[in-house]
């Protein structure tokens, strides 16, 4: 039980995917202009990351390892993730129009995100078990969401702040992200995993 908790703390705070491992930076910069879209993106990412880590774990353990084809992991993971997300998107669109309106446009966007493939590959590198894989993916997603929402909230404040002209727009966003990353370095050593 403690192990599982440690995995969560580790992925959310200590080894945060965005600010410490620098994965998934494009949505972090691209979709964080408004808090509302950032929340939508976070929800979609949480969903996709958890699902992707489960499916890629299954494919790796029950297909690639028995056939001695571990070197095919990258291409097969990309395929698995794309299919799972595509399928879910269609199913959501049919069954729950409301959920589709919240997640819809972000789902295909997140499919090819490096954080998604990163989670799948790191799971294998760390020899995670099935439950650990789920938690690792979920924790990574929660960490992503946390940073995303914080960053979007900050950018909304910065948008109305009196920023010097050379720093306006993306420049100040980059500086803010850097400072946040520095702040998250403070969690280093909180847990060792």
């Amino acid at each position, binding site marked *: 039980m403690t192990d599982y908790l440690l995995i969560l703390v580790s992925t959310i705070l200590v080894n945060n995917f965005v600010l410490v491992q620098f994965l998934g930076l494009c949505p972090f910069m691209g979709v964080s202009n408004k808090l509302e879209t950032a929340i939508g993106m976070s929800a979609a990412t949480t969903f996709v990351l958890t699902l992707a880590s489960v499916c890629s774990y299954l494919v790796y353990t029950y297909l690639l390892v028995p056939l001695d084809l571990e070197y095919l992991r990258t291409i097969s993971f990309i395929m*698995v993730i794309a299919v799972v997300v595509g399928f879910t998107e269609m199913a959501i669109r049919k069954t729950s129009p409301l959920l589709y309106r919240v997640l819809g446009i972000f789902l295909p966007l997140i499919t090819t995100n490096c954080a998604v493939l990163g989670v799948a590959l790191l799971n294998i590198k760390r020899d995670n078990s099935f439950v650990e894989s789920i938690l690792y993916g979920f924790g990574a997603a929660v960490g992503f969401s946390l940073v995303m929402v914080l960053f979007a909230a900050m950018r909304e404040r910065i948008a109305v702040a009196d920023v010097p002209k050379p720093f306006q727009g993306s420049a100040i966003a980059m500086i803010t992200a850097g400072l946040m990353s520095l702040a998250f370095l403070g969690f280093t050593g909180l847990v060792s995993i």
Partner: protein
Amino acid sequence: MSSILIAILLLATLALIFGAILGFAAVRFKVEGNPIVDQIDNLLPQTQCGQCSYPGCKPYAEAIAGGEKINKCPPGGESTIIALADLLGVEPEPLDAEHGAESAVPMVALIREDECIGCTKCIQACPIDAIMGAAKQMHTVIADECTGCDLCVEPCPVDCIDMVPIETTVQNWHWDKPDNLIATSKEAH
């Protein structure tokens, strides 16, 4: 050698299965568009003229489904408004003059060809591509395609486009349409 074959086979099988899953999902989870929008769109004249201030008939149909007024379509005229009112269960209203008047007789655009300077402005204005021609060449209107929406008259810099009524010939003459063809006009009598 055999390991390569196995790898290729595995990837091909995976791709096949995934393709089948997605294909199945595309059929199984097919989402129909809003049916009322299609019904409204069927009643509109499909001139795509934009006089209703929407970029075409389909967007206007979507707007009507979302609560827009039904009296903004001059090409459709009164008959379209009555049909729409009947479909949506609202009171028919007179045509909104702001968006143009309904012409009493069907019109067709005619370019006075010896005055045409070949500027292509009317070609760009035509919503249904019924004007033929190229830059510096004389243009002409394909009369069978023209819906008479008069959007090409305004952009012409030399004013060489006229709206002429379609003459009744032996080919296109028909009996007057019966008065009480639709339910609403029956009730009125």
